[in-house]
C-alpha cells in the first residue's frame, strides 16, 4: 500500500499537543504512532509527555569518546616515554604518572567532545536533505506534525488535524 506523508501546521504547542494526544489514543488502521514527528521552532521538553519516551543515545558516544581519548593519550605518552627505557633517568620514573595525567585529562575532554558531536550527528540523523514536506514557518513560530500513513488512514488523520485547528495541511504521496 502506498505511503503518504502529511504535514500539519499549528499555531501553538497546545493545539499540536492535543492533536498528538488524540492520535496516540485512537487506533487508526494504517498509522503507526512511532511514525509521527513533531517539528518546532524551539525545544519543547514537555513534548516527551505526549510523544512518549524516545531515546537519546548521545551519552554513550560521550562515554566512549572520553575513555578512548584519555586512554589513547596516556598510552601514546607513556609509549613515547617508554622509548627511553634504555637511557638513564637519574632515579626519576620512566613514566611519571602525575604530569602525564594533565595531558590525559585534556585528551579525555577532547575525545569526549569530538565523539559527542559525532554521536549527535548520528543520533539526530544529520546532515540530511530537507524533507519535501517542510515549511519555513516551523522555524518561525508554528508547530509542525509530520506523519507517515497508508492511503487508508489519510482522511482520518487529516480530520483529526483539522479538528485541532491546523492552519495548513500539506500532503505528499510517497512510495
Amino acid at each position, binding site marked *: 500500500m502506498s505511503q503518504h506523508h502529511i504535514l500539519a501546521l499549528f499555531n501553538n504547542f497546545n493545539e499540536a499537543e492535543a492533536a498528538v494526544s488524540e492520535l496516540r489514543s485512537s487506533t487508526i488502521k494504517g498509522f503507526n504512532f512511532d511514525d509521527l514527528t513533531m517539528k518546532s521552532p*524551539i525545544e519543547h521538553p514537555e513534548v516527551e509527555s505526549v510523544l512518549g519516551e524516545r531515546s537519546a543515545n548521545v551519552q554513550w558516544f560521550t562515554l566512549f569518546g572520553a575513555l578512548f581519548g584519555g586512554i589513547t593519550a596516556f598510552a601514546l605518552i607513556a609509549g*613515547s616515554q617508554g622509548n627511553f627505557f634504555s637511557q638513564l633517568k637519574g632515579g626519576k620514573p620512566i613514566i611519571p604518572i602525575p604530569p602525564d595525567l594533565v*595531558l590525559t585529562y585534556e585528551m579525555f575532554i*577532547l575525545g569526549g*567532545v569530538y565523539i*559527542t*558531536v559525532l554521536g*549527535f550527528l548520528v543520533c539526530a540523523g*544529520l546532515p540530511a536533505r530537507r524533507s519535501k514536506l517542510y515549511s*519555513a514557518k516551523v522555524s518561525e513560530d508554528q508547530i509542525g506534525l509530520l506523519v507517515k500513513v497508508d492511503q487508508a488512514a489519510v482522511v482520518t488523520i487529516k480530520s483529526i488535524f483539522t479538528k485541532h485547528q491546523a492552519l495548513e495541511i500539506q500532503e505528499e504521496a510517497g512510495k
Partner: protein
Amino acid sequence: MEKDIRESIEWAKINGDVLKSLESPRPLFWVILVIALSMFGVGLGCEIYQYQIGMGVANLNNPQVWGLYIATFIFWIGMSHSGTLLSAILHLMHADWRKPIYRFAEAMTTFSLMTAGLFVMVHLGRLWQFYYAIPYPSERWVWPNFQSPLLWDAMAIFTYLSSSVIFLFIGMIPDLAICRDHLHPGWRKSLYTVLSLGWEGTDRQWRNFRMTYLTVACFLIPLAVSVHSIVASDFAMSQQPGWHVTSFPPYFVAGALYSGCAAIITLFVILRYVFKFEEYMTLPILKKIVRLTFAIAMVWTYLNAVEFASVWYSHDEASKAVLIQKATGIYAPFWWMMNFCGSVVPFVMMIKRLQTNIPVMFAVSLLLNLGMWLERWMIVSPTFSHGYYPYLWDNNQWPTLVQWGIVFGSFGWFTLLFMGFCKLFPSVSMYEVKEMVYHRSLALKHTERNLAVNATELAEKGAH
C-alpha cells in the same frame, strides 16, 4: 521589577530583528571595521618587520625573554573564559537571562583564543618551527617533553579552541536553519544551507541537541578551569621569584572570568547599538552582568591580596624584593594603576543607578580590562627584571614600538573577526530568545491564573 525581556514579543519579530542585523547594521559598524582593519594593519606590519629582522627588534633579551607578548597572550586567554561562563556555567544554573547574550560571548571565546594562539607564534619568532610542539613521530623518535607546562599549554589551548568552536557551531545550528529559511537566495543562503546540516527542528533532533549541548557544556567548564590553571602553571611551576605561588591557578582563573565579564559589558554596549538589539540586550540584563562582574572583581581582589600576603609573609626575600620593586620601582605606576582599575574602579558598579548607565558602564568595563591587561604585564615583566642573581637586578625592559604595535594590532584582529562574525552569523540566539519568551509567558499566565483563583476563593469566603 523590570523585565529582562518583553514576554509579548512576537516570534516572527525576533527572527526579523536578528536577520535584519545581518543585513543592515548602523553605520558605526563600518567605522569600527575600518578602525579594526587599520589596527590590524599596524600589527601585521610590525610582525612582518620582526620576522624579517629578528626578535631583537622587540627588545627581548636575556633575562627579559617574555615581555608583552606573553602578557598579552595570557590576557586573551583570560578573555576567552567569558563564553564558557555565560554559555556553560549559567546554562547549567538555568539562568535564562543569559540567552540573548551568550552567543556573542561564545564567539568572543573563540576569537580571543585565536588571538591568544597568534601570540604564541609571534613570541616564537621562528614561526616556521612551531610544529616542534606537535608530538609527531619523527625518524629520530624525539618527542616533546610531556612533563612541561608549555606543552600542556599548547594541548590545552588546542582542546579549548576546538571545543569552543564546536560548542559555538552546535548551538548555532537551529539559528542557521532559520537564516536558511528566511533569507533571500544568494551566497549567504547557500552557506547557511550547508552549515545548518538539514536541520528541521524535529523532536528527535531537539532531543539529541539538548543532550549534546548539555554534555559539551559540562566538558567545557572543567576545561576552561584547566586551561587557565595550566597557563598559571607556566609561571607557578618555575622557581622564579614572585611566580612560585600556590594560589596562582585560582588567581588566574578569577582574573580570566573577571576580564571576560568586563569584555562582555563592552561588547554588549557596542552590539546593542550597532545591531539595534535594544529589545534583546536590555538594561535589566546589563544590570545582571554588572553585578556578576562586581562579584568576580571582589574574588579577584581577594586572591590578589592573598598573593601579596603570601609573598610578604613567606620570608622569601627574592619574591619580596620583586613585590617591593613592583610597588616602588620603574613599574610602580602600572602596578598601582592595575590595583586601582582592578580593585577600586569596580566599586562604581555598586551604585545602583549607574548599573544601567550605558556610557558609565562602557567606560568602567574598558578600565577593568585595562587593569586586567596591566595585571598580566605586571606578572611577567617585573620578575624578569629582578631575579635571584644580582646581575639581573634593575634589568628593566621597556617594550619597543614593535611589541606595542603587535599588541595594538591584536585588538584590531580580534575586533575584525568578532564584528565579521556578528555580521555573518546571528549574534543573538533566536531560538533561545523564543524559548525565554515562551517560558516566561507561560510563567506569567500561571501566576495570573493563580491570582485569579485566589481572588475567587477570597471573594467566596467573603460571601460566606
